[in-house]
């Protein structure tokens, strides 16, 4: 009896519940932005803007610098910082190093965003076909760009061309040939549909010129590799010719003006990653020092701020001393300084007192004490071994090459940023120049040289060299066809582009990473063939289905 009653009660209770409204539990996204937003006109525009944002993780950051300038023939380790394995090629390069996964994950997020834009464009309502075409072309440029960056660093990649719409662990490594084919296809389609001008009215959006520059880089890289085709050099040269002749790009008269922070949108810039003085619009998705901004002002500085008469200030910057030029860089690459202005204009050699007083000397043993008034020279780097007697006659400390060390060295000044709000502010506002016209000239010279067209190569190199001449020395800067060797080109690129997130990619392209790093960067003698590829982030391997994603050889 009792039992039956109870059963009835329970049943009644359950009936009550099961009639509860289904609609009540319908989940509508209110406090977040749901995925469908991307199918709206505004959401489609916002997705395209988002697709650009991943550029900031690689360009203008320590992360990008670590992958592109550390451990080269021209740059060796400075005193401070991490990621020393990228300088030394020792066991500190591990698949677990966080930069690997940060770069990988962030660029793949960018790629997935591009895939979504390309895949959804057809269904988006309220956007004109012309705009759709343009945004899709921008997405293809960015997708190609991200795959190019990743492919140069990691080798065979997981080539994903459609948006990830459901959770999956199935990944794969496509071949070099497949990846190059896709990057080239994307570039060509972007070139066809992007605005035919040097710069967009939204400065920093990709134009046809941006995509041509990327494709030229891609052909040049491919021309040396296992996927090379006979016409790669010619295609690269043709694209460079387009950039040199068909747009308004023009070399500035003065090499120093290229990196003048007050002249960032100059005629030499082909494509630039955008940073701003407003920190609200200066944020980086992942990997930025202090959360955003162009950080490159931090890393090339020497430790001036502990020296006599100096304290750290906004003008001289925050010297993280991550990289110091190798002696090969200073003595050979930048050895000629009478005709060529680029040593003087690339490196800071003078510091003026911002903390007057009398101090003991440190690195200059020619005197015991120095006294400075405000604005007096405190440190001078003559660039040669000035004698002790001569140094003794100077009222400041003279830093001679024999006293260079991991904390004291000529300081690359291309990226200094005096518009920062205070001396510790890491988030700089300068645009990062991904490609500039001088690089394009040197790329065409390289392609022509490889095709045996020495005269054309010489002419292009001379355009760059003449611009770099001290007044009245243009003639002396010119080289002859006989001087136009590949070794000369290798050094010319270093002279022109030192520090501009370029060198490691150059050495890799040429297949000279091991030779030249061993020869000119003694601390990196552990460099070996396996280092042409970085380790695949361990997370990519571990989180893929078991056994489907292989590590690069040797890691």
């Amino acid at each position, binding site marked *: 009896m*009792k039992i039956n009653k*109870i059963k009835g009660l*329970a049943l*009644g*209770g359950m009936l009550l*519940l099961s009639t509860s409204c289904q609609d*009540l*539990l*319908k*989940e509508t*996204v209110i406090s*977040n*932005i*749901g*995925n469908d*937003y*991307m199918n709206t006109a505004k959401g489609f525009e*916002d*997705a*395209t*803007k*988002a697709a650009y*944002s991943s*550029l900031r993780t690689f360009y203008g950051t320590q992360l990008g610098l670590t992958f592109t300038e550390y451990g080269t023939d021209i740059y060796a*380790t400075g005193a401070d910082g991490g990621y*020393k394995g990228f300088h030394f090629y020792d*066991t*500190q390069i591990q698949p*677990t190093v966080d930069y690997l*996964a940060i770069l990988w994950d962030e660029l793949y*997020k960018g*790629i*997935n965003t591009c*895939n979504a834009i390309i895949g959804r464009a057809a269904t988006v309502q309220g956007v004109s076909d012309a705009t759709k075409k343009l945004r899709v072309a921008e997405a293809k440029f960015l997708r190609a760009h991200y795959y190019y960056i990743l492919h140069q660093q990691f080798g065979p990649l*997981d080539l*994903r061309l459609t948006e*990830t*719409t*459901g*959770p999956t*662990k199935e*990944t794969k490594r496509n071949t070099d040939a497949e990846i190059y084919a896709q990057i080239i296809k994307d570039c060509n389609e972007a070139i066809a549909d992007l605005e035919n001008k040097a710069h*967009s009215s*939204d400065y*920093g*959006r990709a134009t046809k010129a941006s995509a041509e520059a990327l494709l030229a880089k891609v052909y040049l890289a491919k021309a040396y590799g296992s996927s090379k085709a006979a016409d790669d050099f010619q295609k690269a040269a043709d694209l460079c010719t387009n950039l040199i002749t068909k747009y308004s790009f023009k070399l500035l008269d003065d090499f120093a003006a290229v990196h003048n922070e007050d002249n960032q949108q100059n005629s030499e810039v082909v494509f630039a990653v*955008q940073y*701003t*003085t407003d920190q609200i*619009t*200066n*944020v980086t998705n992942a990997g930025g020092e202090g959360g*955003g901004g162009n950080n490159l002002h931090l890393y090339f500085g020497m430790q001036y701020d502990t020296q006599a008469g100096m304290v750290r200030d906004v003008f001289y910057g925050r010297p993280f001393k991550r990289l110091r030029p190798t002696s090969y860089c200073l003595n050979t690459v930048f050895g000629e300084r009478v005709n060529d202005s680029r040593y003087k204009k690339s490196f800071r050699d003078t510091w003026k007192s911002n903390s007057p007083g009398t101090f003991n000397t440190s690195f200059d043993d020619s005197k015991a004490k120095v006294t400075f008034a405000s604005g007096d020279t405190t440190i001078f780097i003559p660039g040669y071994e000035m004698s002790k007697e001569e140094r003794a006659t100077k009222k400041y400390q003279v830093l001679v090459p024999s006293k260079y060390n991991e904390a004291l060295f000529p300081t690359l000044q291309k990226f200094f940023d005096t518009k920062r709000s205070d001396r510790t502010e890491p988030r700089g506002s300068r645009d990062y120049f991904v490609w500039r016209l001088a690089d394009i000239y040197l790329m065409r010279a390289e392609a022509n040289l490889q095709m045996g067209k020495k005269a054309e190569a010489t002419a292009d190199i001379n355009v760059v060299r003449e611009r770099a001449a001290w007044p009245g020395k243009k003639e002396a800067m010119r080289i002859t066809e006989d001087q136009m060797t590949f070794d000369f080109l290798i050094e010319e690129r270093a002279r022109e582009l030192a520090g501009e997130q370029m060198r490691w990619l150059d050495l890799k392209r040429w297949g000279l990473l091991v030779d030249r790093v061993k020869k000119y960067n003694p601390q990196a003698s552990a460099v070996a063939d396996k280092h042409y590829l970085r380790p695949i*982030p361990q*997370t990519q391997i*571990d*989180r*893929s289905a*078991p056994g489907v994603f292989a590590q690069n050889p040797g*890691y």
Partner: protein
Amino acid sequence: MGRANYSFNDKYLLTLTMRRDGSSRFGENTKYGNFPGIAVGWNITNESFMKGVVFIDMLKLRAGWGKVGNQGVAPYQTQGLLGRTTYAFGATGAFGYRPNTIGNADLKWESSANANIGLDFSIYRGRVQGSLEFYETNTKDLLLSDFLPGSTGFNAVTRNVGHTRNKGIELGVTTVNVNSKNGFKWTTDFQFTKNKEEIVELYNGKVDDVGNRWFIGYPLNTYYDFKKIGIWQTNEADQAKAFGSEVGQIKIQDTNGDNKITAADRVIIGNDVPKWAGGLTNRFEYAGFDLSFFLYGRFGNTILSGFHRNQLQLAGRYQQIKVDYWTPNNPTNEFPRPKSNQEFPVYNSSLFYYDGSFIKLRNINFGYTFSGRVAKKIGAESVRLYSSIQQPKIWSSYLSKYNGVDPEAAITNSATGLTAVTSDVTPSTTVTTFGLNIKF
């Protein structure tokens, strides 16, 4: 929800429950879950055959089985969400939105089925009383964040990842050891728990998932990493070199014996689940004096020490935990030789794991209650003078040998699922109190 209680003669007890829950957080067809429960009890002392057994005051056997649901996931996990990004064109901000989380339309209730059997007892007129319980909990469709390979464009997805089992025993006994006529009384509380947690099955069967550090037969939070087997010593220079290392640096176990250290050499280091834990409280009373102390211990778990990740650069630039590091004159196997040109020692992650076992003297309380006469003199009802010390002593090798902090301070990071003693925790403090209690 429905519940029914039934009791017969105060001997047999039965409770039945049934609930049906719905949550908007789950997928369209899986919003509802049914969660039944049953509990039975047998008051043995109320049986007639127990009448003659005088030394037993109370004996009760109970058993239960029940299922409960868990909807402990953030909202909107069934649908993809966008995340905001920042960029600019020229000086104009260009905020964007891009896919940030991936939806899982198949998400459903996690359910835990708990079965337990227990015995409550009291003998010798309450001199010994306590309870003993065995339990087993099977959690199915466990809701967790599952890492995805970065090339998908996403970090993780929330899903029902599998089946875990917790099995254990709990014992609690209170005894009155001495209760003499002269007023001396000594009582003891003793607790003991032992739990075994293991993954029974994952979403793809009985297959380990290295990316999430989920291994069949091991607890959810298992540490999987390179294992330090020592420091390369001076006479091992050649072997060290063969492994790309050098004297004074960390020697990692070459698990697969291929003479190089790769990801394949990682092993299961341990987990954060103690093998057993126990507590002991002793109370003494005599002639107005009272004294008690509480000891608690946990044994067999592994600590992941954030302190040894963040304060162990051994590079001479930042503040540094004091450790026993290798030098030619100190050929230790504990910590590697400092080097200026490093951010961290190579394979430093092998230095993060420590035995988490500890015994803590949680508190000591000592007091004296003045006699009623004394209290009356000052017009009070009672007067007690006391002193207590909270956490006066911790015995733990992590603390004493490796300069860690409180071994109990581990917290779980919800993003990574990793339990660690992070370097921003407050070390355990010892508090000594003296007091006078007057009641009017």
